[in-house]
């Protein structure tokens, strides 16, 4: 009987989420670095913590890794409460922002460090270290010291040193933060394919919204110790819950609106540019029930037409105040009365594109592209 119980327990554990964080609070003096943060990371997921510096994302990562301790709340890894388990016994490994490679050890010894601490047999260590160094393409650097490596190479060593231990969860603290843009793009792709191949759960801290969008299965956007919104890249981008999320992931136009009429899924609202129809279909914001709220629309959702076209629903006249031509797109700054509007238009036509400075134009805001914000 006992063995049956443990077997089912084991099955339960293996089905448990990779990481569960419940109501975690962390204070530094009077400052709440984390204010009741809860989140669940699924097995094998690439999960990103995204936010500006000082939002608490690194603190949360350190608490999961055991390098910092929560004042309140619970952290479970693979269903096991981590309260009494110190960092060196947790089934996680960290890739540090500063890499934190041991300067007195060679690349090979750096990578072997974790396995040596766990007293794995030397033959086994040699085999696994060689395999991982091959995987992240640092085999030829094996006998170098960290001081003899470039930034990108150090990054690879830090990664190899962590994944050689086959952790349940890999914690990455802005691992690409110190690298130049080109190398960063390349390593993003490599990191993602490595994660898919290994099937290890990744928790990835970054302040770079594009990086988070490109790599993550799900993202938690953080601000001032709280999670503002959690979801996959598309949900966050297309349906930001508030101004902060909308502005942190890309750019948005904000329009103040007063509700005039509701009909089924549609809302008619009064704005600075006249009456607009808003499709409430798929809008989750509780503000949709209020009589006043702020609308957001992404610049690329704004369509532009020649001024000769007639006025109609969600259409109004604007003047081109500024334009930036960047080849594939043209970015416009448009003015309609007191409202300024950003529009990004793909240059799909052959030959001369769009509109000139000071010219009048007509814009259309699609009802489904107008997002109702909480604040």
């Amino acid at each position, binding site marked *: 009987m006992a063995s049956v119980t443990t077997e089912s327990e084991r099955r339960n554990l293996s089905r448990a989420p990779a990481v569960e964080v419940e109501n975690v609070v962390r204070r530094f003096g009077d400052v709440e670095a984390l204010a009741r943060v809860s989140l669940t990371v699924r097995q094998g997921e690439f999960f990103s913590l995204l936010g500006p510096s000082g939002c608490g994302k690194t603190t949360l990562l350190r608490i999961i*890794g*055991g*390098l910092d301790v929560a004042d309140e709340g619970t952290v479970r890894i693979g269903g096991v409460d981590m309260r009494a388990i*110190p*960092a*060196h*016994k947790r089934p*996680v*490994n*960290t890739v*540090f922002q*500063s890499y*934190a*490679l*041991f*300067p*007195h*050890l060679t690349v090979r*010894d750096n990578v*072997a*460090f*974790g396995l*040596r*601490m*766990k007293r794995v047999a030397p033959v086994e260590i040699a085999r696994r270290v060689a395999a991982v160094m091959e995987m992240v393409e640092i085999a030829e650097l094996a006998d170098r010291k960290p001081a003899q490596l470039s930034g990108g190479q150090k990054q690879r060593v830090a990664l190899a*040193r*962590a994944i050689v*231990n086959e952790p349940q969860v890999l914690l990455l603290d802005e691992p690409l933060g110190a690298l130049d843009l080109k190398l960063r793009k390349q390593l993003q792709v490599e990191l993602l394919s490595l994660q898919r191949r290994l099937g290890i759960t990744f928790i990835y801290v970054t302040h770079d919204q594009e990086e988070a969008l490109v790599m993550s299965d799900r993202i938690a956007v953080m601000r001032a110790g709280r999670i503002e919104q959690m979801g996959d890249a598309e949900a966050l981008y297309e349906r930001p819950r508030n101004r902060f999320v909308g502005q942190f992931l890309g750019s948005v136009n904000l329009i103040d609106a007063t509700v005039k009429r509701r009909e089924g899924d549609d809302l008619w609202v009064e704005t600075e540019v006249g009456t607009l129809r808003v499709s409430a279909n798929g809008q989750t914001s509780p503000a949709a029930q209020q009589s006043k709220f702020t609308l957001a629309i992404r610049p690329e959702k704004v369509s532009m037409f020649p001024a000769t076209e007639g006025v109609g629903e969600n259409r109004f006249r604007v003047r081109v105040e500024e334009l930036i031509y960047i080849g594939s797109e043209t970015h416009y700054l448009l003015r309609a009365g007191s409202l300024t509007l950003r529009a990004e238009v793909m240059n799909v036509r052959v030959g001369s594109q769009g509109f000139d400075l000071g010219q009048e134009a007509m814009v259309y805001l699609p009802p489904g592209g107008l997002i109702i914000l909480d604040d």
Partner: protein
Amino acid sequence: MQVRYGERLTPWGEVWRSALTSGPGIAWVTIFLLLPLVAIFVISFLSVGEDKPADLPFTLENYTRFFGFGYFGFDPLYPVIIGRSLVLGAGTAALCVVAALPLAFFIAALPGRYKNLALTLVIIPFWTNLLIRTYAWQILLAPHSLLANAAAAWGLVPAGHALYPSMMAVYLGMVCDYLPFLVLPLYSSVEKLDWSLAEAAADLGANRVQVFRHAILPQITPGLVAGIILVFIPATGQFVIPDLLGGGKVDMVGNLISRQFGVSRDWPFGSAVAIWAMAIVMVGLWLYARQARKSGESIV
């Protein structure tokens, strides 16, 4: 014409400037260190003269005598004295390491302005003369002193007994005297510690002892080695403290040498002992530094 840091210098101009800036230092070291060393080296091969402390002919006898082949047959007296001094130096260095490690970490962890205060407190004993400090220990360890009474209450010594002369008193005085030499270089290493390496080690499965051994110790090894050398060399030559707190019953290499140049008036032998002591200490330190460097780099 040479350009140095944007300044144009003629070859002679450069020589002249070097002489001006580093000349006094070189002259000082030459006159007060190198020449006396050469003199000692030469004297160590001379014999004792009739009315002079050293005279011709040249001889190797001073060196062989050191190993105990003297007038009265074989007697390893002098190697024993050297050995005793080395033990005293090594023991003092070891005790200083034990005391300085926690102290250095403690001071480094203090908030900014308390750091300087703490460092000043470490240095303050230097403001007092060595002899006075050592006599002060005699008072502190005298019969019916606070410490002696406490030791008697614990049954460690009979009531009314002094705690000196004893080996404990000697090491107490030695550690008190040499601790700052170890604390200061060690502190400067601890101050610069990269703690993210300690976190990385813990993250990779190292327990507290392993974190210290593999992530902290390699970083503070330079300061530790420098401090140990700074303590070990003078502690080996120390004889005032063993005299005053150890009862003066045994010879140290320091008073052996000083006696040759004093009452015994045997400058050649004194010089030979000095050369031997210097050679042994230097070889020992070289081996030690090499080993420390190696162990700082190896992993297990």
